């Protein structure tokens, strides 16, 4: 083989193996040669195209370019054309780069030959890239990419807008240059994370723009991997977070404020802290006014970011912040209950609205640029106003700020309200505690008194159950202690017989405690307790007083058990003495009478001594009467007064008494009788009753000319009234006059002659006839004694 042959065969091998297509065209443009790779790339058979014009395989749009290159080559010009599209037997067109040069044989151009490279894949990738790049470029989100060190690789338009840096300024710079000084290490931490895992990271972070503004942004960091799957950097999507951050800041602020407000009920202090909190975060100047208890508006606090300005602020508020000033926001808020927003207070606006030159000056000095005034509210109540003022043209308040401050006003108002409620509640609580303490004290004192009191005291509830007994009550009932008594309150009734005043046995339910519950009024009873085993008798006066609640229902009843055994014994001895004495008096009385009789017989009718004897006789009669009264009394006390029972016409009985007495008195006795009815009873005893009543009426009306007796029917009873116009009886004596030995005194504290027995006797007699006797009288206005009897059937 010659050397040239070896070269040629090597060339042929290279051509066959080349991924590029080698081709040859004759001067007419007919394909005369195609290398093997043609078939693989286009999907056609070589035989299908050898002998055909190249024009058929070129995409129509690219044909002019292809013809131009072809023609040039025929004229000896070599050229390269990129991106010519060629038809294929596969899906779609192929893209090729073509090298075209003349085919020279023997210094003559015999055709065209060249190499075509399939760049379809590359072309597609490039298009996709372009598409993404456009997308990224036109995105609203700031998108940039960075490598593992944080160096910026791409920087889209939105990023330019958000951060102020152009892409050419940023590409190649480290992203950390946009972070505040204290946050620069954040980039390092992100770098570290990118190295170790491919999670998407979300951040909210403050970045510094080209203008130096702090910009809150969100950053979503997605790792970028190369074709081998290794992370080479990250795409960062960033959005302006200013609004959300502001909202969060407001929320945080509100939360801080709320914490402050609820930290103490001393709202003076908390509101001052609140004002300080507002400055300088939310405002350059904040003030709080509250309405005090008298309804007067007072400024509670002022805070200014620049403490030197506080003086001016105070001066301003003193003059123009009050309710006197037309332009006062506080005034408007209090009047309308509406919050006020002054988004931008321009110099023009000031010129327009403020007439007062000095106020204008101050406003300009204080740089009031934007302001919010809101009411401090609790429900519908307005408790004051909160003013928030900005001196910074960059910080103009908007509706969102207004909402926030309004919320703050509500919370502050609530805090004030809560504090006031708290103080009121505390006051009430203190008062109650004090009262409770006093009550406890008085209860303890009472306990001591009740313990040391000699009277037995018991308390029953509305059902009659024993709820309290003092020591004396327990001791007199045979208990060792009052606890024992409360434990088993009925033992005593098994040990004792209970008897009433007349010695008749009664049940515990007949005692005044139960009666007081039943009748809802004070009851009193004299009872004796007889020990069943020792037969020892104790006397007790039991007073039961019901305790009524506000509705008049019985809550409890207090029993005061006064052991009157000794007194009763004394009474008995007194009664015995009266009885014996009066009996013993009778014999000497009789003797004296006899002696007088004898003496009288020795005298003649004309003797002057007879007058003396008459007077002795009179006195003797009085003495006899007293003895008789005393004996009656004794009999009543002993229950030995005997009664006859006969039918009596009450009118004729009283009439007889009136006639008898009329003969003995200068008073006129007026007798008015409206009935003709009978009662059953003892004529003599009843006569004595009316004699007593009439003689009393006469006796106690010394300056009057008449007394009146009236008989009529009243309801189901016969009623006898004995009326005088005399000295009268005080109300507190109305019951006492019916007790024995009680005597009414006149205005000069003098008693009237009498034994204090008549009314006692009368009451006893009337009671024994199932009647009632009482008096209605006022001191100095006469008395009317009422006696009623049931009518005999």
């Amino acid at each position, binding site marked *: 083989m010659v050397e040239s042959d070896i070269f040629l065969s090597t060339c042929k091998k290279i051509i066959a193996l080349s991924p590029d297509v080698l081709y040859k065209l004759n001067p007419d443009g007919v394909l005369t040669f195609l290398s093997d790779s043609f078939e693989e790339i286009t999907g056609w058979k070589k035989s299908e195209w050898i002998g055909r014009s190249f024009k058929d395989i070129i995409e129509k749009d690219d044909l002019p370019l292809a013809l131009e290159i072809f023609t040039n080559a025929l004229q000896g010009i070599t050229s390269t054309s990129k991106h010519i599209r060629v038809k294929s037997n596969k899906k779609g067109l192929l893209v090729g780069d073509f090298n075209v040069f003349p085919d020279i044989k023997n210094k003559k151009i015999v055709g065209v030959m060249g190499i075509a490279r399939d760049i379809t894949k590359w072309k597609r990738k490039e298009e996709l890239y372009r598409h993404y790049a456009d997308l990224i470029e036109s995105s609203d989100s700031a998108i940039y990419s960075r490598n593992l060190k944080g160096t910026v690789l791409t920087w889209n338009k939105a990023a330019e807008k958000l951060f102020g840096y152009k892409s050419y300024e940023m590409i190649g710079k480290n992203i950390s240059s946009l972070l505040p000084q204290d946050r620069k290490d954040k980039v390092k931490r992100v770098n570290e994370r990118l190295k170790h895992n491919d999670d998407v990271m979300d951040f909210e972070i403050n970045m510094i723009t080209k203008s130096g503004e702090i910009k809150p942004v969100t950053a979503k960091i997605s790792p970028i991997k190369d074709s081998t799957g290794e992370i080479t950097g990250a795409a960062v999507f960033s959005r302006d977070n200013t609004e959300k951050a502001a909202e969060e800041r407001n929320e945080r602020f509100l939360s801080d404020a709320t914490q402050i407000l609820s930290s103490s009920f001393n709202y003076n202090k908390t509101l001052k802290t609140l004002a300080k909190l507002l400055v300088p975060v939310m405002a350059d100047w904040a003030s709080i006014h509250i309405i005090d208890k008298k309804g007067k508006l007072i400024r509670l606090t002022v805070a200014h970011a620049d403490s030197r300005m506080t003086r001016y602020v105070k001066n301003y508020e003193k003059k123009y912040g009050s309710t006197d000033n037309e332009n006062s926001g506080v005034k408007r808020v209090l009047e309308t209950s509406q919050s006020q927003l002054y988004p931008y207070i321009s110099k023009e606006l000031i010129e327009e609205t403020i007439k007062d030159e000095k106020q204008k000056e101050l406003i300009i000095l204080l740089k009031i640029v934007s302001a919010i005034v809101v009411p401090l509210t609790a429900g519908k109540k307005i408790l004051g106003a909160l003013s928030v003022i900005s001196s910074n043209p960059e910080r103009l308040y908007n509706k969102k700020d207004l909402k926030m401050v309004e919320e703050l006003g509500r919370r502050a108002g609530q805090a004030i309200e809560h504090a006031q409620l708290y103080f009121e509640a505390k006051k009430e609580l203190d008062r109650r505690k004090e009262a409770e303490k006093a009550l406890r004290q008085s209860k303890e004192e009472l306990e001591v008194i009740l313990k040391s009191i000699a009277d037995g005291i018991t308390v029953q509830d509305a059902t009659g159950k024993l709820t309290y007994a003092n020591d004396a009550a327990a001791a007199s009932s045979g208990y060792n202690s009052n606890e024992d008594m409360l434990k088993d309150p009925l033992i005593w009734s098994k040990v004792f017989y209970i008897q009433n005043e007349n010695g008749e046995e009664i049940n515990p339910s007949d005692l005044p405690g139960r009666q007081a519950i039943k009748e809802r009024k004070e009851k009193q009873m004299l009872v004796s307790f007889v020990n069943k085993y020792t037969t020892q008798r104790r006397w007790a006066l039991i007073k039961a007083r019901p305790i009524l609640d506000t509705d008049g229902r019985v809550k409890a009843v207090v029993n005061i058990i006064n052991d009157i055994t000794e007194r009763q014994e004394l009474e008995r001895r007194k009664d015995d003495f009266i009885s014996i004495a009066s*009996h*013993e008096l*009778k*014999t*000497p*009385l*009789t*003797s004296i*009478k*006899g*002696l007088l*009789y*004898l003496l009288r*017989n020795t005298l003649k009718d004309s003797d002057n001594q007879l007058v003396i004897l008459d007077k002795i006789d009179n006195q003797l009669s009085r003495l*006899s009467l007293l*003895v008789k009264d005393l*004996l009656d009394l004794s*009999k009543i006390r002993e229950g*030995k007064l*005997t009664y006859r029972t006969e039918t009596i016409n009450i009118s004729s009985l009283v009439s007889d008494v009136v006639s008898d007495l009329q003969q003995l008195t200068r008073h006129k006795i007026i007798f008015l009788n409206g009935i003709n009815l009978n009662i059953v009873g003892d004529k003599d005893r009843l006569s004595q009753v009316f004699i007593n009543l009439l003689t009393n009426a006469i006796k106690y009306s010394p300056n009057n000319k008449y007394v009146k007796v009236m008989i009529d029917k009243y309801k189901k009873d016969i009623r006898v009234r004995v009326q005088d116009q005399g000295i009268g009886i005080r109300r507190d004596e109305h019951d006492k006059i019916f007790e024995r030995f009680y005597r009414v005194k006149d205005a000069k504290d003098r008693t009237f002659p009498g034994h204090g027995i008549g009314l006692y006797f009368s009451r006893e007699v009337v009671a024994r006839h199932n009647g009632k006797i009482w008096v209605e009288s006022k001191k100095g206005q006469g008395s009317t004694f009422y006696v009623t009897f049931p009518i005999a059937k």
Partner: protein
Amino acid sequence: MKKKKILIVDDDVAILDVIKMILEEEGYEIRTSQNGSIFPIVNKLHPDLILLDMLLSGEDGRDVAKKLKSEKKTKYIPIVMISAHPSAEKGSLQAGADKFIAKPFEIEELISVVYKALGPAKHN
């Protein structure tokens, strides 16, 4: 004519004297006793009337009356019982007394009672 004889029994000397004087003035013959042991006197004297106080020291006039009324010789003698207790009338009459006078009595009442029981002071 013989005077009618009255025995007065009362432990109170004063009243005994007074009654004695009054009735002597009326013309009766009077004997007195301060206690209830009067049977020897009664048997010896045969009084026409006995005025007997019910309450004697240590004795009960009613027992005395019962005894007098249970004896044959004395049961015909009228007894007037005197007492400071008006309520004693019933018991007195049950014990056999013919009449009862309550202290303090009017002198006229006493004389009248004695007169009703005995008639004129002297036997006919």
